[in-house]
């Protein structure tokens, strides 16, 4: 039993922290979100130069051979500053599927992701299946080099910037993961802003023709790759939530020390002190489950799936509580869009909604 981060992991944390302190105050972030692409290509270039885009990949694929621990370290720091660069969709989601697949063209693809040359998004959600992503309606028909894709996907993160998509589709009584280019005929893309200012898209496939080399995986392999990706992605946004929780309670403590009412800092009031203690405790409790889930995933523990569901439940509940109370203790300023604090609440709301919300994971936990 050793719960200490290694020197290397601590250095990575410091590096991300320093980057965010220098490049990512709230006004910087606002400007980035207002831009056409909704993220900063300059930042993305720096991510590539710093080697961050290579973090989870094996050395064979041009990566650092790091794993869940390093990813959560980075995401915790991202969460503190509400970083919007599409690390989750390109590196974590697409990257995890490709890295673990037997896809022939994966190396070339991963190299371009690591170099920051292109974005790839995973298309998994649909209109009428809720969180049961494997029950998808989008279908890949045919065989060999005569494949046809029909259907539609929604909430495809960063779709507007992605040059390729990994699509989960029903195929021959099972499932398949296929890679499609954004310029393929038969693909239509509608872009939307997310509630926290990021971007997502809806993809519609109409008799979209594909050849065999588009199939990343099929059958049991596709399902295993997909489930693994969802677990890693859930872990990452949970780490992001822990970072956002830390920032939320710390900003709230700071604000109540500065804000004076009734001729004294409002942090003198015990009811506010205890509320902030509750926010702190929820943060620490969430961090505990995060570390447990991270280490279990890192060691391929069979209990990891259950712990990740537990983590997602705690992230949902604690994020809601901390986000709401941070707004409450900021008073009117808390609901002002100009203050950062309300944007944490938006991010908590987004995070709870992704990859299964609190209720979904309570039910899932009960069945495991």
């Amino acid at each position, binding site marked *: *039993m*050793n*719960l*200490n*981060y*290694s020197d290397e*992991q601590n250095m990575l944390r410091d590096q991300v922290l320093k980057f965010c302190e220098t490049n990512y105050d709230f006004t910087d972030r606002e400007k980035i979100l207002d831009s056409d692409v909704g993220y900063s290509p300059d930042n993305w270039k720096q991510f590539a130069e710093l080697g961050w885009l290579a973090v989870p990949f094996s050395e064979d694929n041009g990566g650092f051979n790091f794993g869940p*621990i390093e990813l959560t370290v980075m995401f915790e720091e991202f969460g503190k500053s509400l970083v919007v660069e599409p690390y989750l969709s390109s590196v974590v989601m697409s990257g995890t599927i490709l890295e673990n697949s037997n896809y022939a063209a994966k190396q070339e693809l991963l190299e371009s992701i690591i170099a920051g040359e292109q974005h790839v998004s995973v298309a998994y959600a649909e209109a009428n299946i809720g969180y049961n992503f494997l029950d998808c309606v989008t279908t890949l028909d045919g065989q060999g080099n005569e494949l046809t894709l029909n259907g539609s996907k929604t909430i495809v993160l960063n779709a507007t910037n992605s040059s390729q998509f990994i699509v989960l589709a029903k195929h021959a009584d099972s499932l398949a993961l296929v890679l499609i280019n954004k310029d393929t005929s038969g693909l239509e893309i509608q872009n939307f802003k997310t509630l926290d200012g990021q971007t997502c898209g809806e993809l519609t496939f109409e008799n979209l023709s594909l050849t065999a080399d588009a199939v990343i995986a099929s059958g049991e392999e596709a399902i295993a790759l997909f489930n693994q990706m969802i677990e890693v992605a859930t872990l990452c946004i949970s780490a992001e939530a822990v970072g956002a929780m830390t920032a939320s*309670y710390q900003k709230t*403590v700071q604000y*109540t*020390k500065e804000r004076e009412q009734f001729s004294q800092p409002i*942090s*003198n009031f*015990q009811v506010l*002190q*205890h509320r*902030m*203690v*509750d926010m*702190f*405790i929820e943060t*620490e*409790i*969430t961090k*505990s*489950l995060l*570390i*447990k889930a*991270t*280490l*279990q995933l*890192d*060691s391929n*523990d069979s209990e990891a799936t259950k*712990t990740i569901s*537990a983590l997602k*439940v*705690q992230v949902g509940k604690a994020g809601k509580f901390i986000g709401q109370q941070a707004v409450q203790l900021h008073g009117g300023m808390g609901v002002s869009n100009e203050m950062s604090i309300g944007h944490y609440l938006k991010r908590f709301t987004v995070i709870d909604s992704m990859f299964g919300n609190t209720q979904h994971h*309570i*039910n899932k*936990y*009960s069945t495991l």
Partner: protein
Amino acid sequence: MDISFSEQDLQFQEEIRSGLINDFPAHVREKQQKGESLSKSDMIDFHKFLYEKNWAGYNWPVEFGGTGWSPVQIYLFLNELAAAQCPTILPFGLSMVGPVIYTFGNQEQKDRFLPDILQFNTWWCQGYSEPGSGSDLASLKTKAVLDGDHYIVNGAKTWTTLAQNADWIFCLVRTETTQKKQEGISFLLIDMNTPGIEVKPIITIDGDHEVNTVFFTDVKVPADQLIGEEGKGWTYAKFLLAHERFGIAGVPVCKVQVAKLKEKTAAYKDADLNKKIAELEIDLMALEFTELRTLAAIAKGGHPGAESSILKIRGTEIQQRISELFVEAAGQYILPYEGPEGFESNKNPAGPDYASTSVAHYLNFRKTSIYGGSNEIQKNIIAKAILGV
């Protein structure tokens, strides 16, 4: 980072487990399994068993007769004890006054008191709270005046757990009236058989006699029973509170309780109850790992400060929630109440077998968020020490 226990730790765990299977007194085990309350002699038998296994000083250094176990070993030990349905080890001697004596006492005091604490030849109780001093402990008024080679003690201590069984009491007493109320406090050991001590029961809302008020009227206490220096009692008391309070969260017992709750209610197929149990399990899992994080920090040489307040708050909240769920699951069958004397009729009333004990436990466990520094006081500690407000 690595989540697994070492080979040695797993071997240690196995030794504890088989030691419990082979030697844990059968009559105590039987009562524990039935949920019956233990007598004074049962408790003494249990603690003597720990001593005979060389486990009594589980959190003491080797030089004072302890095991010298690592934090991980202590954690595993307490887990195994709970899993085998052992009673909770009484903290007053082994976790409270013992460490104060071996840290601040003189050689004579160590020789005189420590072996009896380990062997459970003496039953200790704690004289901290007073009728007028609860959360504001330092306002205590029980007075000790030095008269030659004796202190004369007058005053009252209250909420004294199991004082009716105790041979000795360790007390915070006021030896001087100072401007700063913390400064005039001293730490005194008092034989419960000394003339002038009267123990008066307090019956709690579950009908049980667990706590007492202890009155002191001109009690003569030999001056060599003062620990450390006069006026430094508050420092020792704080040491005691901040002392590595293993198991403060009560996780191992909670795990056993939740397993029992699931077993007893599985047949109901009550989706609403099952959802609450799932949420409880998740919170317990998070608490257990929080405790492990604290443990890891201690193993690295750190001291759990205000963080142990998290364990106290969360642990007691979860303990209380478990007790509430048992009552909820039992429904109307909690009404026929089995007091400390048993049911009036010889026949057990209808309803699940856990109904009566669960409601007694529920009422009794309201104490957990109040004792040991109420949860509100714990929040004050975190606010001040960690948040800096």
